[in-house]
C-alpha cells in the first residue's frame, strides 16, 4: 500500500458497483433512473481519477515503475498473482482521460440515445468498459493486466452489437474475434515472462526476467503481435474501420479514445521495459510497420467516402505515429508516444462525437451528401474544421506534438547522417503527416465549403444542442490547452520514461 491507496480502489470499485446496480435493479423504473445514476457514477469516478494526480512524490532513484498510489494484496497464491495496482506518470494521464471520456459519453447519452437495447444496459456496459480500461492502465501485475484487458472485450462487443448501425453484427463479431486473438497472444506472452520472472511488474522492471536474448525476442514478438492487434498496427488493423463505422457514437469514442491505447500502453508498460533485449532486436521492424501504418492509413483515407470510416482510418495513421515513437526506444520517442496517445484520445474522441452527431442529424455519413454543411450548420462545421485541423497536426493544437516528436525521435536514431532505416522511417512518416493534412482538407473542402446538397438543405439548420456542448466543450478546450502546454503530460511522464530508456539502453 502506497500513498492514498483507497483512491485506486475507489476509481475501480465505483464504476463496477454502478454497473452491478444498473444490471440488477428490478423493473422498468431502472431505465428511468439509469441515465442519472450512470452519469453521477461516471462523474464521481472522474473526480476520484483527478484525485489520483495528487500526492506525487519527488524524484527518487531510477525505478521504472514507481507509483504514487498503489494497492498490493495477494490474490491467487498458486499462480503467484497479486492484486497489484498503482498509478504513475505513464498511467496517470490515460486514467484521467478514460474517466473523462466515459463521463462525457454518459453526459452525451443523457440527450442523445442510440437506438437499440435498454438504456440501463447501455450505461452498465459503459461503466464495465471503464473498469476494464482503468484496470489495464492501473495494473502492476501481468495477470491482472491480462484480466483487465479481457474485461473490455465482451462489453464492447455488446455495445456494438446492441446499439450499432445496420452492419453491426458483422462488425462486432469481427472486432471481438480479432481482439480476442490479440489477447490470447497476450496471455501466451505474459506467461512466457511470468514463468521466467514472476508476474510482478515492479520486480520485473527492476531485475528483469532473466530470459536469454532469443527467448526475449520470442516473448517480445508475441506481445508485440498482441498489442499490435489492439493498437491497431497495419496489417492487423482491419477490424477497426468496421467496428468504428457500425458502433454507436459513444462506442466509437471509447474505442478510439481509450481502448486502442491499451495496446500502445502495453508496449510502454510491459513489452519494452521488461524485455529490453527483445525490444532492441525487434524495434526496427516495429518502426517499419508503424511507418507503413502511417502511409496506409493516409492512403486509405483518400479513398474513403464515409466520414466515420475516414476518421477510423486516420486513427490507424495516428497510432502509427505513436508506435513509431515507441519503436525508437528513446526518451523523445516514448514521450511522443505518451502525448500522442492522449492527444489522439481527445481529438479523435471529439471527431467521433461530431461524426456521430452529423450522422444522427442527416442520416448519412457520405461526404458527398454532406456537402455544404458549413453553410447550413456553421457551428457544427466549424467545430469539425477545428478538430480536423488539430488532428492533422497543426502546431499549437494537441495533435502536433506527438507527430513532430515521433519524427524527430526517428531522425535522431540515425547516427552519423548516413541513410538508415530510421531516416527512411522519419522521412516517410513526415510524408504521412503531410498526406494527413491533405485528406482532412479534402474532407473539409467537401463538407464545409461545398454547395449545399439535397440532404443538407432538406433538414434545415440544426444547431448544436446544450447537451452536446457539455460533452464536446471539454474536449475542444483540452485540444487547445494540450497544444499550448504539452508539458502537462510530458512532465508527468518524464522520470518514468527516462528510467525506461535507461533500462533499455543498459
Amino acid at each position, binding site marked *: 500500500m502506497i500513498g492514498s491507496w483507497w483512491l485506486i480502489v475507489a476509481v475501480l470499485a465505483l464504476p463496477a458497483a454502478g454497473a452491478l446496480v444498473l444490471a440488477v435493479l428490478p423493473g422498468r423504473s431502472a431505465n428511468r433512473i439509469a441515465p442519472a445514476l450512470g452519469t453521477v457514477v461516471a462523474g464521481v469516478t472522474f473526480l476520484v481519477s483527478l484525485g489520483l494526480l495528487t500526492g506525487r512524490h519527488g524524484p527518487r532513484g531510477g525505478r521504472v515503475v514507481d507509483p504514487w498510489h498503489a494497492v498490493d494484496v495477494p490474490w491467487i497464491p*498458486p499462480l503467484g498473482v497479486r492484486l497489484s495496482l498503482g498509478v504513475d506518470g505513464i498511467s496517470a494521464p490515460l486514467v484521467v482521460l478514460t474517466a473523462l471520456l466515459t463521463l462525457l459519453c454518459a453526459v452525451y447519452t443523457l440527450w442523445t440515445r442510440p*437506438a437499440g437495447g435498454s438504456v440501463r444496459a447501455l450505461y452498465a456496459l459503459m461503466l464495465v468498459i471503464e473498469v476494464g480500461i482503468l484496470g489495464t492502465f492501473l495494473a502492476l501485475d501481468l495477470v491482472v493486466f491480462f484480466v483487465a484487458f479481457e474485461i473490455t472485450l465482451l462489453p464492447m462487443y455488446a455495445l456494438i452489437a446492441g446499439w450499432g448501425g445496420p452492419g453491426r453484427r458483422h462488425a462486432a463479431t469481427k472486432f471481438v474475434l480479432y481482439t480476442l486473438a490479440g489477447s490470447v497472444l497476450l496471455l501466451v506472452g505474459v506467461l512466457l515472462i511470468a*514463468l521466467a520472472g514472476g508476474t510482478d511488474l515492479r520486480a520485473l522492471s527492476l531485475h528483469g526476467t532473466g530470459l536469454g536474448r532469443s527467448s526475449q525476442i520470442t516473448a517480445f514478438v508475441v506481445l508485440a503481435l498482441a498489442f499490435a492487434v489492439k493498437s491497431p498496427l497495419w496489417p492487423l488493423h482491419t477490424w477497426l474501420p468496421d467496428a468504428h463505422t457500425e458502433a454507436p457514437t459513444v462506442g466509437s469514442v471509447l474505442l478510439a479514445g481509450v481502448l486502442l491505447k491499451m495496446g500502445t500502453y502495453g508496449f510502454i508498460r510491459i513489452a519494452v521495459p521488461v524485455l529490453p533485449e527483445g525490444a532492441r532486436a525487434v524495434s526496427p521492424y516495429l518502426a517499419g510497420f508503424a511507418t507503413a501504418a502511417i502511409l496506409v492509413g493516409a492512403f486509405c483515407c483518400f479513398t474513403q467516402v464515409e466520414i466515420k470510416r475516414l476518421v477510423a482510418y486516420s486513427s490507424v495513421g495516428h497510432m502509427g505515429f505513436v508506435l513509431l515513437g515507441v519503436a525508437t526506444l528513446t526518451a523523445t520517442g516514448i514521450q511522443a508516444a505518451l502525448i500522442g496517445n492522449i492527444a489522439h484520445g481527445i481529438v479523435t474522441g471529439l471527431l467521433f462525437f461530431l461524426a456521430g452527431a452529423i450522422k444522427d442529424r442527416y442520416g448519412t455519413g457520405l461526404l458527398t451528401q454532406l456537402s455544404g454543411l458549413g453553410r447550413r450548420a456553421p457551428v457544427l462545421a466549424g467545430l469539425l474544421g477545428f478538430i480536423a485541423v488539430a488532428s492533422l497536426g497543426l502546431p499549437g493544437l494537441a495533435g502536433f506534438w506527438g507527430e513532430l516528436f515521433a519524427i524527430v525521435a526517428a531522425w535522431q536514431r540515425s547516427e552519423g547522417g548516413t541513410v538508415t532505416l530510421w531516416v527512411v522511417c522519419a522521412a516517410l512518416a513526415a510524408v504521412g503527416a503531410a498526406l494527413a493534412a491533405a485528406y482532412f482538407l479534402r474532407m473539409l473542402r467537401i463538407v464545409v465549403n461545398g454547395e449545399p446538397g439535397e440532404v443538407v438543405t432538406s433538414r434545415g439548420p440544426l444547431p448544436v444542442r446544450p447537451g452536446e456542448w457539455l460533452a464536446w466543450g471539454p474536449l475542444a478546450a483540452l485540444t487547445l490547452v494540450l497544444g499550448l502546454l504539452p508539458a502537462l503530460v510530458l512532465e508527468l511522464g518524464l522520470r518514468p520514461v527516462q528510467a525506461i530508456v535507461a533500462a533499455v539502453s543498459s
Partner: protein
Amino acid sequence: MAQNIDHVALAPLYAAAATAILVLLADLLAAPGRRGWLLGVAGLGVAVTGAVAVWAGTGPARATFCIPPRPLASGGDPITACSFAADDSTAVLGAAFCVLTLAVLALSAPLVRSASVPAGEYTFLLLSSLFGALALTGARDLITLIVALETLSLPLYILVGLRRTAAGASAALTYLLISVVSTSVTLLGAALLYAVTGEVHLRRLAAALSTLDLGPAAPLAAAGVGLVLVGLVFKVAAVPFHAWAGGVYDGAPLPVAAYLSTASKLGGVVAIALVAVNGLMEGSAIWASVLGALAALTMTIGNLLALRQTRTVRLLAWSSVAQAGYVLAPLAGFAAVGSGGGDVSDVAGPLGATLAYAGFYVLVELAAFAAVITVRGARDGGTLEELRGLGRRRPWVAAALALALAGLAGLPPGLAGLFAKVVVIKSLVDSDVLWLALVVAANAVLGLAYYVRLGAALYDRGGGPAPVSPAPAGAPSGAVPGASSASGPEGAVLVAEAPVVTETEARSWPVLVTLGVASVAAVVLGFLPQYVLWAADAAARLLVG
C-alpha cells in the same frame, strides 16, 4: 492366502451401491404418480456417499486388495502394490463425482416428472454409473480401472436411449458401438503391457516400464501404452473417438447429456491421467507428442464442427469435444519429462493443470446445461432459434447461460473459464510446448465465434426499433446487451414472443437451484480460482505418487 480387506477404503462404493439398491426398492413402493421423491432419496444417498468418500479419503492414506511385496523381474527392491486406494485424491475426485451426480439428479426433475422415462430405472442407472466413477477414482491397477470405467459407461448406453425415441435409439446404438470399439482398443493395449511386463498394477507397471530392459519388446510396450490411451480418449470424446458426441448428446435426455459431458468426461480424464502418469517410460515422449497432437486435433475439429450447428445441444456437444482438447493439452507436457524417466514433481504440474481445467470446465458446462434445462424442461435441447430473445423472456436464466458461455469461451465475466485457460497455457509454456499453446490460443478465437453467436441470439432484439436497414443476407440482426447485465430491454420491443416455451412447465425448483448454485460457484471460483488449483494440485500429486 487370506485377503485383508480395508472396508473403510471401500466405504464410498458400499454407500453408492446401497443408494442404488435403496432406490430400486423405493421404486417398488412408490405410488406411480409420485416419482419426485425417488430423486430425493437418491440425492440424499449421493450426498451421504460424497461425505463418506471425503471421510474415507482424508484420513491416513489407505489401500486394499494388495499383493505381497516382491521385486520386479529386473530385480531391485520389492514393490508392494494395491488395486484400490483411498487418499486425498479419491476424496477430491469422489466428492466431485458425487456433486455432479447430485446436480444431474436435480436436473432430472422435469424429465422424471414428465414420466417420459421410468423413474426408478433411470435413477438406479445413474447411481450405478456413479458407483463406477467412484471405483475409478480408487482404481490402481489396469483391470480395475477398465472394469470401473465400463461400470461408469454401461448404464449410460441404456440411459441415452431410455426415452425410446428414434433419435434416442440411434444415439444409444452409436454410443454402444463406438464404446465397444474403444474398449477393445484399450484392452488390447492392456494385454500388450501385460505380455511385455507381466504386471497389471499401475505402480509396478510404472516401475517396470522405467527400469526393465525391455529389449526388442520396448516398441510393444510403447504401443500398449498408446493403445490404452487412445481407447480411453473415447470417454472424453476426443479425436479419434469424437464423432459420437453430436448425435448422442442431442438424442439423449438433457440431464443424461449433462452427465455425459461432465461426470463421464471427468471419469475419462481421471483414467487417462492414471495411465499417462504410470505409463511414463524411456521413449514415451512419442506418445506424449501423440497426445498433444490428439489434443490439438480435438480442439480444432470440435470447434470447427460447432461453428455450423443450429441445435443447442449439438453446439454444446461439439464445444465439449473442443474443451476435451484443452483438457488433454497439458499432458503433452509429459513429453518433456517422459524422456528423462519421469520425475514425479515434473509430471504433477501438467497433470494438475489438466485436472484444474477439467474442474473449471465441468462447473461451467454444468451451469450451461442447467440453464438449457431450465428453459427446455423435459424436452430435448431444441434449436438456437428457440432460445432467441431469451434475455427478454427470462433475463436471469439468459444471464446465467451467457455467463456459462463466457466461461466456456474463457472471457470475463466468466472468470473461471479465463483462469482455466491461463492454467492450461501456463502449463504448456512451462513444459516448453509452445506450439500447442499457440494452437490453444487460436482455438480460443475459433470457439468464441460460436459462443458469441449463441450469446447474441439470447439477447437478440429481433427486428426491434433498430436503425433498421436491411441486414446483410444471412446475418439476422443481433444484439447482446451484455453478458454482464441481466437486463430486459425496455418495452420498445413489440415482437411476438417465440411460442415455444410453456413457462410453467419449465419452472422446476431443483433445476433452478442447481442453475443458481452452479452460476454462483462459477462466479466465486472465478474470483478465487486458487481453491480449484489447490485441489487439482493435491489430487495430481497423489495420483502421481
